[in-house]
């Protein structure tokens, strides 16, 4: 109970700061939309191809804007010596990690909630039919991303060249999550398209079950990575963040 309250306090603190300043989420969102635009123009061939690439663009936007949020989350602590203050409170390291991580997940989810409708309009993505599974994929991806990201952002808090180092060491670790996210999203979109075509009277494709299996497989991989990353990050955080 006590631990839960500590986590809640750290989480609430980050949310409160964000509610007062509104700087992180806003810049994350604008950045994500811009990435969407840049990538669209970079790879645009025609409407049909851009739809196929859309899952990739979506996850790239989440990755980059998420990184922005992560470094903001700890830059804010640094400016006022906040992390030291946090460590001086009776809250355990694990609780601090969990609170910060949940706050980062929350920011990313808010951005995603605004980003997803935009993307589904831009790229004509049939997401409503698979809303539940898609939400699960996005949430799982976000959790895995934020778990490692919070750890790395925290440990680079005082490092020289931290803005440079964070992506360099963070992206290679988190790439499996992104791959799984893109694959699962692509599979879901395919299923949704096929279901729509079937509703119009087109013959159902025999490969739908195979695709469904594949999506499920990627979701399982996402869950496995989330479990590994959460456990490893929470554990390593206790040893890394000392003073």
């Amino acid at each position, binding site marked *: 109970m006590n631990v839960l309250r500590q986590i809640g306090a750290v989480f609430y603190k980050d949310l409160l700061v964000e509610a007062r300043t509104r700087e992180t989420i806003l810049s994350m969102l604008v950045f994500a939309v811009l990435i969407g635009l840049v990538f669209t123009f970079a790879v645009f061939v025609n409407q049909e191809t851009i739809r196929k690439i859309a899952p990739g663009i979506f996850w790239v936007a989440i990755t980059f804007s998420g990184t922005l949020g992560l470094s903001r989350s700890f830059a804010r602590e640094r400016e006022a010596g906040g992390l030291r203050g946090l460590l001086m409170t009776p809250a355990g390291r694990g609780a601090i990690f969990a609170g910060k991580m949940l706050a980062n997940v929350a920011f990313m989810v808010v951005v995603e909630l605004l980003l997803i409708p935009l993307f589904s309009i831009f790229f004509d993505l049939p997401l409503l039919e698979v809303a539940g599974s898609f939400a699960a994929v996005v949430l799982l991806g976000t959790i895995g991303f934020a778990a*490692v990201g919070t*750890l*790395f952002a925290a*440990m*680079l808090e*005082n*490092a*020289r*060249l*931290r803005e440079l*180092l964070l992506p*360099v*060491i963070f992206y*290679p*670790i988190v*790439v*499996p999550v992104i*791959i799984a996210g893109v694959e699962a999203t692509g599979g879901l979109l395919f299923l949704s398209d096929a279901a729509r075509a079937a509703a119009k009277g087109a013959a159902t494709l025999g490969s739908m079950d195979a695709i469904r299996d594949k999506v499920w497989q990627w979701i399982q991989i996402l869950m496995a990575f989330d479990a*590994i990353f959460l456990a*490893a990050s929470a554990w*390593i955080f206790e*040893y*890394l963040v*000392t003073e």
Partner: protein
Amino acid sequence: LTLVLCGAALVGVALYSIFALAPIEARMGIAQKIFYFHVPAGMAMVLLAGGCALASLVFLISRKEIFDEIAVAAAEVTMVFATISLITGPLWARKAWSGVWWTWDARLTSTLLLWIVLAGYHMLRGLSGEGARRFSAGLAIFAGVDAVLVYLSVKLWGGQHPIVMQDEGLGSNIHPGMRLPLFLSMGAYFFIGAALFWLRMGLERTRNRLRALKLQVSERME
């Protein structure tokens, strides 16, 4: 010097067996010889990355300098072997997979990731100053996870990369005449890997002692 001589001898024997004893493969021709360089490098890479992660784990818990020295040495030698695998791999693939250097196969991707993580590891050590040891140890644990992924990748995701580590025993799917050269080559690789590791660890030890001594001197001056 003994290390160098032993290493040279082992390499000589391995090279002799590779080029003189091993049969020339029918489809690949002489290019199949790359196999004897690629496979042991990959194996040494996975083993050393695992060792590095393990040492880092122990270092985080115990804070004993020696484990950090082990981890640095292992990480650096891992990088050497990862580079060898990544160079010899595409050379092999060009011949075996009809003309492509690279595919985004699970094992290739995870190996490339491991290489990048290791590069990040060295950057982190070089740049982040105080606390770099602990940070890089944290990173190394993730590198260890990736090394496990490299090992399991073919079994989990399939892909084009063949498996040498069969369940029936190492290399049981390889022509018997090729087995001895492979094992000799593995011996040479592992020996050189161990020797490099040992020397690099010694260097790190000396460096740490030098730093400690400098600190003492500057304290005494004041």
